């Protein structure tokens, strides 16, 4: 690599995080640490019914017995679970505001600053937003309009009270609390997140979106999202996240469950931009996420798209259980790591039903001193006749201080199923750089353009409103000045 390329890349490593501000607001917090009292406190703050509390306590007992998962390619410092606040909510939320007029203006301003206006007239047309601030949902827009179609879009805390039968039936049905220690932890202490129910044969007319913001210090965020698409329905859901810039690490441990019944389709997109730590590796969010979708009915479809640029450490494997015959699972991912970030992300496609199909497109870009791993599991069970998988993972290495790793697991127990897997790792092609620069583009512009092209297959899967943002985010993650 020539000296100019290295110079350009050096600049890239000095990335600036634009969402690092803190909102000064009075909060109610649980006592530090995790015990039954903490869980009772959370449940009480949320006015939960008894069944919910006892479910939480069961999960807590499971968690106590479970070991921390180990990852080959991640170096995770020991996390002191007694040194975290498990609940934090703005004081003004003692009672949930009925409409935006009752919401603390400071909060509305915070979201405006993040580019997420909550006043409906200012909201991007066609996007309904649920804004989660630390442990509580601040506001949900367009609720009324959605209600007319029978669509439920609210915070999970609210759904526990208003739709207990659905929550009871599906919560923990895709990710059993005993799956691993973080699924048990989340089930015990989850604070807020979104709940979506799309009734039979309804195509949700707008993008549903949740925006997660961690504000309070030393606070963990335990998001829980549950999306149920009933027979023949369709929904597209977006998730975005940011956090203030701090020297200490913070934990975000989410559980997301999707259920698609017969002929239903769920499209789930994430743009993850949690604070990644500074250029010396200090601070940043630990983003430990369990996301799983169940294609329960015939001909159902679940599609995950993610753009991962943030967090100090990420592990996350949005997965599909393809149970219904002819069901489809998709995973499109861009993961960019810079400085000292570590990411271990990928997917799991479990083919159970006949004629199930899955597709995995993963693009990893490693810069600085970061480590970026794709880990994926494709398995065909005995009865998955004529199932198919296509996987493509490409990694780009920029500089010789970082690492790019590809760890696929492929397991076939069916002789009519076909799996095809391709992967490649290389540096930015110097011939492409030369070509772009010969046409007058600067070195930086050329790199940004080529990397965006490299990610195109994934970015084009994002809903329109997000795609442009994501493209910019890719450019910003690379350096910060290309526009």
């Amino acid at each position, binding site marked *: 690599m020539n000296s100019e390329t290295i110079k350009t890349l050096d600049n890239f490593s000095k990335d600036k995080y634009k969402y690092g501000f803190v909102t000064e607001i009075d909060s109610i917090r649980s006592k530090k640490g995790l015990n039954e009292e903490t869980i009772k406190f959370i449940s009480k703050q949320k006015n939960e019914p008894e069944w919910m509390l006892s479910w939480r306590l069961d999960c807590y007992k499971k968690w106590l017995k479970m070991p921390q998962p180990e990852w080959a390619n991640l170096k995770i410092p020991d996390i002191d679970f007694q040194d975290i606040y498990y609940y934090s909510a703005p004081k003004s939320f003692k009672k949930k505001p009925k409409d935006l007029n009752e919401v603390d203006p400071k909060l509305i301003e915070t979201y405006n600053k993040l580019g997420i206006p909550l006043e409906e007239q200012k909201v991007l047309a066609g996007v309904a937003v649920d804004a989660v601030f630390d442990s509580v949902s601040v506001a949900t827009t367009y609720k009324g309009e959605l209600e007319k179609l029978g669509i439920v879009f609210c915070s999970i805390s609210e759904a526990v009270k208003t739709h207990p039968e659905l929550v009871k039936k599906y919560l923990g049905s895709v990710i059993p609390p005993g799956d691993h220690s973080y699924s048990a932890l989340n089930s015990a202490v989850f604070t807020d997140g979104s709940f979506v129910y799309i009734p039979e044969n309804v195509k949700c007319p707008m993008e549903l979106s949740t925006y997660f913001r961690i504000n309070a210090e030393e606070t963990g965020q335990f998001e829980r999202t549950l999306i149920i698409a009933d027979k023949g329905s369709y929904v597209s859901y977006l998730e975005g996240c940011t956090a203030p810039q701090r020297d200490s690490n913070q934990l975000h441990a989410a559980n997301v469950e999707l259920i698609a019944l017969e002929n239903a389709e769920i499209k789930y997109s994430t743009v993850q931009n949690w604070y990644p730590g500074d250029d010396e590796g200090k601070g940043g969010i630990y983003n430990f996420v369990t996301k799983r979708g169940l294609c329960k009915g015939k001909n159902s479809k679940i599609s995950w798209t993610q753009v991962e640029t943030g967090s100090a450490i990420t592990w996350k494997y949005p997965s599909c259980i393809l149970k219904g015959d002819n069901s489809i699972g998709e995973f499109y991912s861009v993961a960019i790591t810079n400085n000292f970030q570590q990411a271990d992300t990928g997917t799991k496609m479990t083919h159970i039903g006949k004629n199930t199909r899955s597709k995995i497109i993963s693009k990893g870009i490693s810069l600085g001193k970061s480590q970026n791993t794709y880990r994926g599991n494709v398995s065909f069970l005995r009865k998955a006749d004529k199932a198919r998988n296509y996987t493509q993972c490409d990694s780009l290495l920029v500089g010789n201080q970082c690492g790019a790793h590809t760890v696929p697991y492929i397991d076939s127990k069916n002789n009519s199923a076909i799996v095809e897997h391709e992967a490649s790792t290389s540096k930015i092609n110097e011939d492409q750089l030369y*070509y772009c*620069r*010969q*046409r007058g*583009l600067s070195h930086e512009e050329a790199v940004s353009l080529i990397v965006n*092209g490299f990610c195109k*297959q994934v970015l084009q899967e994002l809903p329109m409103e997000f795609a442009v943002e994501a493209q910019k985010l890719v450019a910003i993650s690379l350096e910060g000045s290309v526009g």
Partner: protein
Amino acid sequence: MIFLNINNLNVSIDGKKIIDNFNLNINQGEIHAIMGPNGSGKSTLANVLAGNEDYEIISGKIIFKDHNLLDLNIEERAKLGIFLAFQYPVEIPGVNITPFLHASLNSKLKNQKKEEIDSLSFAKLLRKKAEELSISSDMLKRSINTGFSGGEKKRYEILQMSVLNPEFTIFDETDSGLDVDALKIVTEGINKFKNKNNSYLIITHYQKLLDYIKPDFVHVMRNGKIVKSGNISLASEIEKSGYKNF
């Protein structure tokens, strides 16, 4: 103003000398052709003019529009008006020509302290130029050079040239890999774009290309230097008896 002057240029790659005491002068509006057998250093010359960093310039001077070219990097030379039509245009998956060329053109306009062009007008301009070269709008939607045939790639190069409007274009074996029909379309484009202000340097192995584009001067290159210069009759001589006499 000196348009292009190459003076005593010596270039090597991996310690091997490719260009040896090379001299050439091109004035505004002229068409020059350099012919030579494989390995004579023709393509190296094209890449050295464009600023490719793989080559080591041992000595010599290149003046272009009164600028010392060797002090400038690749994109600075491009902005100054040098365009290289590549022999093998590289595929850039996922990158569409419209934003790519729009950024190119604007960087050039900015350099000339001219007003930048907005995306709508640019899209119109691109479509118009594409039509002139019978490039379908479908082809404009594809990623740059990705999955193109040899002829399509070369037409794409000419399209980019006509949009960027360079004063000096180097055609590096533009005829290679083209059948007769494709060659006709490409050379028509090249001729259409020619005016009294821009100059061409055509690098080719065969004389065939020069049946379509008439050069003012023909040079024969061997072992890194020009061994003979003349007019178009030199090309017919090569066609008849090859390079062995040079």
